């Protein structure tokens, strides 16, 4: 569990300068990669036929990247039990319902 909003945010306090920077470069590279993959997988990706395809995929990537920063600013430290509640009792059933609806649409 990472505690970014707290003064002692785990191992990050034990490093300074460029060593600390390497951890954060790694984290941000990870975030950018995830944003690109999410934009391709969930938001339709890159449309080569369109003139502004490059612009739109940039905006999609920027949206996902901003979403991560936004969520981190809004809920700096979600308690683990709250996170479990959200994932198991809210997102998991919604995903199941989503599968059912998709199956129905394919069937009909």
């Amino acid at each position, binding site marked *: 569990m990472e505690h970014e909003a707290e003064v002692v945010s785990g191992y990050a306090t034990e490093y300074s300068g460029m060593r600390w920077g390497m951890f954060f470069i790694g984290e941000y590279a990870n975030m950018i990669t995830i944003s690109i993959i999410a934009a391709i997988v969930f938001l339709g990706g890159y449309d080569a036929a369109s003139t502004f395809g490059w612009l739109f995929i940039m905006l999609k990537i920027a949206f996902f990247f901003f979403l991560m920063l*936004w969520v981190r*600013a*809004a*809920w700096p430290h979600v308690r683990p039990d709250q996170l479990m509640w*959200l994932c198991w009792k*809210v997102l998991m*059933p*919604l995903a199941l319902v989503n599968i059912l609806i998709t199956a129905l649409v394919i069937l009909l």
Partner: protein
Amino acid sequence: MSLEQFKNRNVGIQNYTTLDLGKSPETGMEQFTQVVKRTFKGDLFAGLGVIMKAMLKALFKGDMHTVKYPFEKLPISPRYRAIHDMLRLLESGNYRCIGCGLCEKICISNCITMDTRYDEEQRKEVSEYTINFGRCIFCGYCAEVCPELAIVHGGRYENAAEQRAGFSLFEDMLTPIDKLNLQQEYDGFGAVSPNADENIKQTPLAY
């Protein structure tokens, strides 16, 4: 903040609202309906909305709480003991130091070195004055003991430098003669910081 508002010490009482938490679920069905209700209430999105509002306010309405440090600085208290300044007399532009040597004597870390001599008019002049900032503990005794308010603590607190000789010579600490009109008079010990009014907050006492 007006005095009337400031005298009202009972902040906290009148702003409290009791949360209506409802009754906690007892049966399994009630627990289930509670989770379903919370699922579609979207309280997490309300949190996102609060942050978005705060961000828009900070970006477009100038309600920013952070300071872009190297470009903006918060005012420091006049009591702050940073790198020393040597002040000049406003009338003549001469340095105020009379070479009495009190600062050298009182310095508990022995970091002030000065040398004086008599000039051709038989007036004492400071021929050499250095402060070894590698030893200085910034106790402020030199500024306190100075009878002419010649040596004071300035506002230069960024002590990182490539060469430590850079700010220890008399000429480096002396107000530049062309910036004499910008010379700040030392407010004295116990002076409040320039933004003291903004820093006053009501103490939330509820008794």
